[in-house]
């Protein structure tokens, strides 16, 4: 007996017996061979039971030898942070130290309490989630879902951040070949030798596709697999070819944009930490050659999910590639020629084949004779109607296909089966191609190509090795010629002799799993969907395959129904009494196989998830103890707590200090747009509601920008720098969209205007100094500007120097205080900030952040667009009618503002609220009612848009949008909260310095 498992067959397979690998499964130590998958190594050690099913917790084994595996899903653990659930054991390669665990079982794999679902399974029939757990809604959240989640669920998600790196690359090529089987290799060779830039990808560890198990094939005189490896070697050394192994084409998007994921390190025992775990390739190909092959289907019969029952091609792969026999006494159940090859290979390797059960009455007599010649009993026109055994199949029940005589029970320890081959049309379907039903061969094949692509080989329904090779060579050369101007004749010739037989095909449930039978004959293993479930769905009125799919969840598991779709469709069609193409195949969508979030996200996580924007003064603010808040991508100083202060205390102090002495604020994040040109004033006149033609040079104006519908879009202060030059400011978040909006009008509606727009948001650092001592603080630094009230009053603009640096100084205020906003080139921002701070601080000036800015502006009733407006507020609603030019004949929004619903009475209008108890700070967003005694649903007449504690006023302040608010002054309204009702009184929005004298200094 081999060290690497009792089921290893000496001399079989391509692995080297000396290269042993140690791994564990459910904590037990096993030995496999280098090159094994977890599945092949487990089967070698006679382990077939690897998991429990999703819904019924049925024992499940390994059903395939590839990526289409529905059942053998395990958790793979490298260390505490690297536990990956739902890995297909048939894909995961083993390495020293690999630790795998079974899933979905408790307390142990062999004894699972959840299996009671199997016995009580009428409860869990199709549609159960829709029908049983719909009502009451609250019960779903608190009762049903937690119970179901505990009992079901596949695998356990890791609870630590993913420590691995994931790389991402874009690449262009002439020809992308998806699939490295014989067709893909031939196409790639042909295209590459013609001179095209070629990418060839294959999802498996070894290229060759079916050549890995089909021993009969000979190409160029070589055994098929050997030929494939030489073809790969030949391609790998060509400069115009990129060969990607372990690389899955998972998504086919518009214009031949194909996503590939390369698994770089999962098969390595000790990966270099600098190597990414996976690499995402985003390929733009001039032409895609799809050579995805075909996937074998299982037979649908009772208990066809018992461990030890698998596809015939899988058994061949385990024997011919891995040197592993899937059992010692293997039954065969088929409707297809290719299963004979499995039986014959196994028999020749010394495995007992008690019977080949062939559903067909008249199979290929040559195969029957060959099998019989080896001493195998062949039962044609018979069906397997059941499987015995629980944790491992122990027998198969065989009956004549048309019933009649007594059933025979044949002891086995494995069953291999084949219902035929499904062309893998996933990539074609993802490219938005519509598959066409081929009645003769009973399968869906690619129809017209919506993108520049072609299918070759088995995925195109091309049967036979010679035909596939011929087709692929031609497709490769044509692709090169049509995509690459310098292409020449490829000259690639491949001689073929010897090939396997693949004929025969059946879809749907086998005899014995027909209508009316109570049994579990599985169609979809991963989602536990049986033939009966699909019939039930039809009975329940589901007539479209899309509805049947959603009702039963057939094909909706992570394997996307690679084995089950066609069977499900055939059973539904039979139940509906309609032909298969009339019932229709569901559309395949990305990803083809499960794809990690890591691969999709790549480097874009943590600090690289989104850029962080910091102002030039950020470091100084940090040193001053600022707490920052995120405003879009910006980090903005929120408040500056001093020792012992919480946020509330800090903001109160900052608010007081600004009004009593002065405060300095970083306003750099404001959007800034330079509007230049002979028609600049006319342009702004059209874009803002306010008049701009007569704004004098050296003056500022507060402007409101509307959309055509009359709703406020943005606001900001505009300075006239020169006759033909304006410095426009926007809200912090609005800068890009305001520029976009302006460009739109300039380029498409007012292209006759001579105006140029430039974003200058990043060019200027903006330092606001506000408060009674503002002028005294900045005066010594300012050159060339007379700051006196007479020459530089409120809403003035001037250029000069501040700290020797060229500056644009705005005399303006968002606090209601006398104040200045000093714009200096961004690189000098820190220097000017520090200088002003050093002088101002000993005079009692403080730094203040965005929270204090918000409070101070609310004390003055200044709005913040996006907080006190919500996209349905007009300038009139906001109490800003004065800012709408009455004499203007045109501006964006002029007509919208006259729409009947915008001029009708009862609009929500911006008002101030006085909280009657004098101490409660309302919740922003809270709803307002006129009658708090009304029972729900109450008549909501508005909502609180801004609300703060005002230390300067000594009471809370709030603004709200209230229906007909301007006419409700002095009225009492109510803010109902979960625990009480708060009484408020409607008032104007100016809470502080109503006369507005402070602003003039």
């Amino acid at each position, binding site marked *: 007996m081999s060290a690497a498992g009792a089921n290893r067959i000496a001399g079989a397979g391509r692995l080297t017996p000396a290269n042993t690998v140690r791994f564990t499964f459910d904590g037990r130590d096993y030995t496999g061979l280098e090159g094994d998958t977890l599945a092949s190594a487990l089967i070698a050690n006679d382990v077939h039971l690897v998991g429990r099913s999703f819904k019924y917790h049925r024992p499940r084994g390994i059903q395939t030898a590839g990526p289409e595996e529905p059942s053998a899903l395990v958790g793979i653990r490298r260390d505490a942070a690297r536990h990956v659930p739902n890995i297909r054991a048939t894909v995961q390669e083993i390495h020293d130290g690999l630790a795998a665990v079974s899933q979905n079982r408790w307390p142990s794999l062999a004894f699972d309490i959840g299996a009671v679902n199997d016995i009580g399974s009428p409860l869990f029939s199709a549609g159960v989630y829709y029908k049983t757990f719909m009502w009451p809604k609250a019960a779903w959240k608190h009762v049903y879902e937690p119970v179901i989640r505990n009992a079901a669920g596949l695998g356990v998600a890791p609870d630590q951040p993913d420590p691995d790196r994931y790389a991402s690359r874009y690449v262009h090529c002439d020809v992308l070949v998806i699939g490295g089987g014989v067709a893909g290799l031939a196409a790639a060779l042909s295209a590459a030798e013609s001179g095209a830039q070629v990418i060839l990808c294959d999802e498996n560890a070894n290229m060759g596709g079916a050549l890995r198990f089909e021993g009969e094939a000979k190409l160029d005189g070589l055994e098929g697999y050997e030929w494939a490896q030489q073809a790969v070697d030949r391609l790998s050394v060509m400069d115009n070819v990129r060969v990607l192994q372990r690389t899955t084409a998972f998504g086919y*998007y*518009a*214009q031949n*944009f194909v996503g590939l994921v390369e698994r770089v390190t999962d098969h390595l025992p000790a990966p270099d930490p600098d190597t990414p775990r996976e690499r995402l390739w*985003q390929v*733009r190909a001039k032409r895609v050659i799809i050579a995805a092959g075909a996937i074998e289907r299982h037979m649908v019969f009772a208990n066809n999910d018992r461990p030890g029952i698998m596809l015939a091609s899988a058994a061949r792969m385990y024997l011919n590639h891995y040197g592993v026999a899937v059992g010692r006494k293997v039954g065969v159940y088929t409707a297809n020629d290719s299963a004979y090859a499995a039986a014959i290979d196994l028999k020749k390797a010394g495995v007992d084949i008690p019977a080949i059960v062939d559903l067909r009455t008249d199979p290929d007599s040559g195969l029957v004779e060959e099998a019989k010649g080896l001493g195998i009993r062949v039962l044609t026109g018979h069906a397997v109607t059941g499987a015995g055994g629980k944790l491992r199949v122990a027998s198969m029940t065989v009956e004549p296909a048309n019933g009649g005589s007594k059933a025979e029970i044949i002891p086995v320890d494995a069953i291999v089966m084949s219902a035929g081959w499904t062309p893998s049309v996933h990539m074609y379907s993802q490219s*938005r191609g519509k598959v066409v039903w081929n009645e003769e061969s009973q399968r869906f094949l690619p129809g017209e190509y*919506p993108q520049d692509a072609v299918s070759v080989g088995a995925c195109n329904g091309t049967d036979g090795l010679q035909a596939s090779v011929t087709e692929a060579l031609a497709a490769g050369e044509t692709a090169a010629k049509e995509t690459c101007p310098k292409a020449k004749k490829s000259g690639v010739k491949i001689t073929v002799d010897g090939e396997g037989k693949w004929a025969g095909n059946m879809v749907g449930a086998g005899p014995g799993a027909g209508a009316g039978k109570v049994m579990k004959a599985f169609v979809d293993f991963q989602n536990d969907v049986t033939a009966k479930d699909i019939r039930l769905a039809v009975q329940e009125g589901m007539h479209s395959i899309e509805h049947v799919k959603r009702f039963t969840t057939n094909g909706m598991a992570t394997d996307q129904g690679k084995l089950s779709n066609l069977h499900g469709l055939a059973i539904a069609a039979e139940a509906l009494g309609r032909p298969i193409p009339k019932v229709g195949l569901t559309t395949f969508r990305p990803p083809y196989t499960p794809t990690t979030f890591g691969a999709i996200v790549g480097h874009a996580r943590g600090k690289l998830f989104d850029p962080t924007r910091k102002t030039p003064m950020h470091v100084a603010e940090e040193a001053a103890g600022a707490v920052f808040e995120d405003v879009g991508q910006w980090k903005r100083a929120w408040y500056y707590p001093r020792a012992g202060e919480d946020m509330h205390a800090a903001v109160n102090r900052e608010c007081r200090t600004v009004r009593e002495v002065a405060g300095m604020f970083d306003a750099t994040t404001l959007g800034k747009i330079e509007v230049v040109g002979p028609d600049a004033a006319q342009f702004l006149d059209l874009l803002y509601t306010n008049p701009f033609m007569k704004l004098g040079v050296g003056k500022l104006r507060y402007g409101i920008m509307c959309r*055509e*519908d009359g709703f406020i879009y943005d606001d900001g202060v505009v300075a006239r720098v020169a006759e033909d030059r304006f410095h426009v400011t926007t809200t912090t978040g609005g800068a890009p969209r305001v520029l*976009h909006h302006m*460009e*739109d009008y300039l*380029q*498409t*509606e007012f*292209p006759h205007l001579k105006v140029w727009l430039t974003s200058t948001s990043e060019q200027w650092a903006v330092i606001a100094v506000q408060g009674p001592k503002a002028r005294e603080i900045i005066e010594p630094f300012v050159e060339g500007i007379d700051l006196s009230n007479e020459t530089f009053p409120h809403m003035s603009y001037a250029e000069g120097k501040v700290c020797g640096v060229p500056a644009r100084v705005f005399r303006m205020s968002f606090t209601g205080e006398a104040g200045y906003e000093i714009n200096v080139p961004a690189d000098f921002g820190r220097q000017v900030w520090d200088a002003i701070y050093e002088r101002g601080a000993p005079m009692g000036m403080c730094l203040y952040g965005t929270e204090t800015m918000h409070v101070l502006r609310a004390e003055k009733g200044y709005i913040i667009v996006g907080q006190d407006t919500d996209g349905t507020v007009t300038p009139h609603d906001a109490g800003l009618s004065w800012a709408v030019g009455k004499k203007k*004949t*045109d501006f964006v929004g*002029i*007509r*919208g503002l006259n*729409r*009947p619903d915008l001029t009708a009475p009862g609009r929500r209008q911006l008002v101030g609220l006085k909280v009657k108890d004098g101490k409660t700070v309302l919740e922003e967003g809270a709803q307002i009612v006129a009658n708090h005694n009304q029972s729900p649903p109450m008549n909501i007449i508005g909502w609180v848009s801004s609300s703060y504690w005002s230390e300067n006023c000594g009471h809370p302040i709030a603004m709200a949008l209230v229906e007909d608010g301007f006419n409700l002054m002095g009225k009492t309204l109510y803010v109902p909260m979960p625990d009480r009702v708060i009484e408020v009184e409607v008032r104007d929005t100016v809470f502080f310095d109503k006369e507005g004298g402070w602003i003039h200094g």
Partner: protein
Amino acid sequence: MLLIHCPYCEEKRPELEFRHAGEAHVARPADIANISDAEFAHYFFYRDNPKGVAYERWRHIHGCGRFFNAARDTISDKFLTTYKAGEPKPELVEAANENKAEAQKGNSAK
């Protein structure tokens, strides 16, 4: 991800560089202040939603910054052509007919 031909840069660039900007050939009325409510509604709110050729605006926002127009087939999502702002709607009778036939086929199949 679509590839979009910018008629100003005169090359195909990835969709990430562009922003969709609504239906094309919707001109702002010259005397907008005096149009009727119905006219305003048609100008501002009403949009075509064709199955087949749609004319739409795009902006090469992370490239040259220009707005341009495109004719796109809403069945296949494919761009039929792109052209500069201000240029007239191109004649796409053939493509439109093809799409109409396709659409009818789709309808009759239902």
